[in-house]
């Protein structure tokens, strides 16, 4: 279904322009990190791509609109249903049309892959924040998405849980899923990213490989952003 093309996409809410004539093409393959200061429109861009928000104007086109929605999203705060961990994964699978039996099998496998097999039958909301985020990743991964959107998936986590989540994201990418992610953690962007989309005030300001972006950012905004996030450099 990739590449995904956005042409002149605008999004406005309550009279405030959040995405401003944004044109971008997201290709299969490289892990894309979306960076930018607060209010740049990163989260909104991902929600527009994922289909949760409808652009106010402009066009959004997937290469193939092959019936099934082969995409998933993980949010900053994981939303867990009031049921067991494995039931949360099965819920997503059954909504995507997997049979009850196959859902159970896949759910079991994916919980093992994120290291939650022992917590499978615990109530999801009783898990720790880090475990809940791993469960959210498992729920998305189980669907076998072609694209996975992640909105600051480690923003609320401690360093240990952050490492766990990062290694799961790496594993998901290794199975052939395109990663599109926002983060405020520049170290994380460097570790997990192949390319950077840098946004400011609803516009795409700069696009570069991770190396190039951090070594010599082209735009003044990106220079200022990196400097403000890493003042000791």
């Amino acid at each position: 279904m990739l590449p995904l093309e956005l042409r002149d996409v605008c999004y406005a809410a309550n009279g405030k322009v959040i995405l401003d004539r944004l044109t971008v093409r997201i290709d299969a393959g490289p892990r894309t990190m979306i960076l930018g200061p607060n209010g740049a429109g990163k989260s909104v861009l991902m929600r527009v791509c994922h289909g949760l928000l409808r652009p106010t104007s402009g066009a959004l086109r997937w290469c193939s609109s092959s019936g099934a929605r082969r995409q998933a999203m993980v949010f900053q705060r994981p939303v867990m249903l009031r049921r067991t961990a494995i039931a949360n994964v099965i819920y997503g699978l059954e909504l995507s049309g997997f049979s009850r039996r196959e859902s159970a099998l896949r759910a079991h496998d994916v919980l093992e892959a994120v290291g939650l097999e022992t917590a499978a039958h615990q109530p999801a909301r009783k898990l720790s924040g880090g475990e809940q985020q791993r469960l959210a990743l498992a729920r998305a991964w189980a669907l076998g998405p072609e694209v996975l959107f992640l909105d600051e998936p480690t923003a609320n986590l401690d360093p240990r849980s952050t490492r766990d989540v990062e290694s799961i994201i790496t594993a998901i990418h290794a199975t052939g899923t395109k990663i599109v992610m926002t983060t405020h953690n520049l170290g994380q962007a460097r570790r997990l990213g192949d390319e950077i989309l840098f946004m400011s005030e609803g516009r795409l300001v700069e696009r570069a490989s991770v190396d190039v972006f951090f070594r010599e950012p082209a735009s003044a905004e990106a220079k200022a952003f990196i400097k403000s996030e890493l003042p000791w450099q």
Partner: protein
Amino acid sequence: MNDVGRAFAEAFGMIGRLDAQLVDIVALSVQVSLTAVVVAALIGLPLGAALAVERFPGRQPLIVFLNALMGLPPVVVGLLVYLLLSRAGPLGDLGILFTPAAMIVAQAVLVTPIIAALSRQTLEDTWTEYEEQLRSLGASRASAALTLLWDSRFSLVTIVLAGFGRAAAEVGAVMIVGGNIEGVTRVMTTAIALETSKGDLPLALGLGLILIALVIALNAVASVIKELAVKRYG
């Protein structure tokens, strides 16, 4: 011993030996109100869920209207159902006026808005939390509504029990459409009203005590369920 003391003693005596008249009245009360609440829940819960997840023009006024219906005076409901079911009324052919069926209809009319309005509020709070995630997973509005109902089931039990309490405790509606006929449509509240005016305080008191106990028990059950659910599912 004074009159009140004697009445209390006799009332406890009636409860203690399971006085036949008392038991019949309590049984009919519970049967009528329970049936009414089941009917009200079958209508009110899906209505509440639909209002929680759907967005359409006129939704807000509808919610205000529904909330207002929670305060419907039982006697007015009784009057409307009476008009509906009376011989000359549009549903007069059913011939159920002055039967327990009419009382069930009246109480269901009274309780449905309560269950719908309260469940709408609860389910909408859950929807606020779940919406993006469920839409991301590809849930349709209908399956999202079912998910909300299931995930909020323990809060909904509390709401349904509140509805039962309201039904069992009201007197105006069942009095009008039931007629308070002894052995046929006499329930706890209508019996209390009648026996008190007749001066038969022990029976009235006995029924009153049972009614209060019932309401307390329902609230206890509701709070225990809620607490267990929070402990178990967070």
